[in-house]
């Protein structure tokens, strides 16, 4: 039996998930479309006063990003769970947490990164000044992986359930609070023109922390869900 090194197992799994996602291109667009749509609903709801829109803009973008990420979470392990390949990962010789990390990374590249790409467009729609757009993008690229990582624990716990969707939001949204607070706050601070090093550093710390801890919790949860 040929043995596969951990790095090649990781990259194979990543490549496999990306190919699978590429084959279903319409699903690639959906989170992005949802993100734009939710953001577009807010001005319709609160009125077209430019000052008001500017004031709520950063919060709206971040809440929409939270919801878009939540909506796409369910697909993270779903198909692998249904066709049994998830059980094969559990049986492999490699640590499950690393394999899980590959899946989370693939999922983020497919659903989190598009949010980052359309963010400047939304910033223009919501009157966020151009000077704050780099900060918005920086917070999104640091924050959305945290959402995927934290979310993966919730998905792993609910993957075996028939109606896991509603429970998933109940499990995951409270844990998203810190990311929402610091993401929004950084953008608001950047609009005023004050340095945002503190918020960015904290977001970075959250990313590193969840990168280390979340895959282990996800692997443990998957073992329980599959037992």
């Amino acid at each position, binding site marked *: 039996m040929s043995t596969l090194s951990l790095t090649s197992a990781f990259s194979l799994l990543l490549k496999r998930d990306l190919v699978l996602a590429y084959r279903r291109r319409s699903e690639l667009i959906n989170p992005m479309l949802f993100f734009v749509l939710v953001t577009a609903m807010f001005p319709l709801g609160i009125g077209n006063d430019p000052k008001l829109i500017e004031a709520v803009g950063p919060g709206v973008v971040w809440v929409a990003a939270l919801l878009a990420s939540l909506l796409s979470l369910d697909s993270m392990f779903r198909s692998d769970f249904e066709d049994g390949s998830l059980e094969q990962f559990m049986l492999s010789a490699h640590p499950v947490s690393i394999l899980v990390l590959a899946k989370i990374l693939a999922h983020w590249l497919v659903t989190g990164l598009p949010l980052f790409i359309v963010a400047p467009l939304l910033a223009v729609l919501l009157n966020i000044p151009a000077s704050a757009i780099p900060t918005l993008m920086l917070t999104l690229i640091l924050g959305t992986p945290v959402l995927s990582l934290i979310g993966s624990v919730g998905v792993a716990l609910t993957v075996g359930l028939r109606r896991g969707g509603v429970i998933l939001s109940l499990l995951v*949204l409270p844990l998203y609070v810190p990311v929402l607070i610091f993401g929004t706050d950084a953008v608001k601070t950047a609009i005023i023109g004050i340095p945002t090093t503190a918020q960015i550093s*904290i977001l970075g710390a959250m990313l590193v922390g969840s990168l280390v*801890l979340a895959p282990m919790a996800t692997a443990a949860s998957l073992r329980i869900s599959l037992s």
Partner: protein
Amino acid sequence: MIIRFFHQMGSPRYFYNVAGKLVPWFMVSFLITLVFGLYYGLFVAPPDYQQGESYRIMYIHVPSAWMSMFIYVVMAVSGLISLVWRIKMTEIVVISSAAVGASFTFLALATGSLWGKPMWGTWWVWDARLTSELILLFLYLGIIALHSAIEDKRVAARAVSILALVGVVNIPIIHYSVEWWNTLHQPASVTKFDKPSMDISMLIPLLTMAISFKLYYGAVVLMRARAEIVERERNSRWVQEMVEQEAK
């Protein structure tokens, strides 16, 4: 001897019997401390020089808030124990605690808003503590929802244990980020219910109530655990014998 103790407590039947003997003790001491604490707090303790009589809701509010955090920590610790050593009884403690913890959190929020109406003029303020408490309530509700959604109760217990552990890692982060958010959005002077050196006549009923609530939690958790044990072990011989004897 310690190992023997844990071994025995790990056995559902032994736990069931010991818990059954403990419940009345917890209940009686809960009622005694409750009556003493409420009487002392509502009639004996002097009114506050600023808040008048309405501060007295603190004797329910503060112990409830303490309990809401205490129970979550108990759940996380017993969750860790049940994940590492697979002890059935700690799994049952995790699950039996969730609903009690959620009720205390709700009680803390409800009494807080009742107190807020005369003091702040509104039922709800997005104050750091209130917001953290609200998120804590959501964490409890998530645990309860996850547990009721998974049919196999042993799997459910382990899933809930992981969730409690993830939550306990996150609670400090959530709390401090909410505090950060709060200081930026609101003048801090309005809402600080700070506790300067409290007078001893107010401290005695407060601590009595805190002990009383802990005793209540002990009693309820043991009662719920006994019910859970009987439900889980309904196919075992000792439960069936017990039920037959009750029927006679």
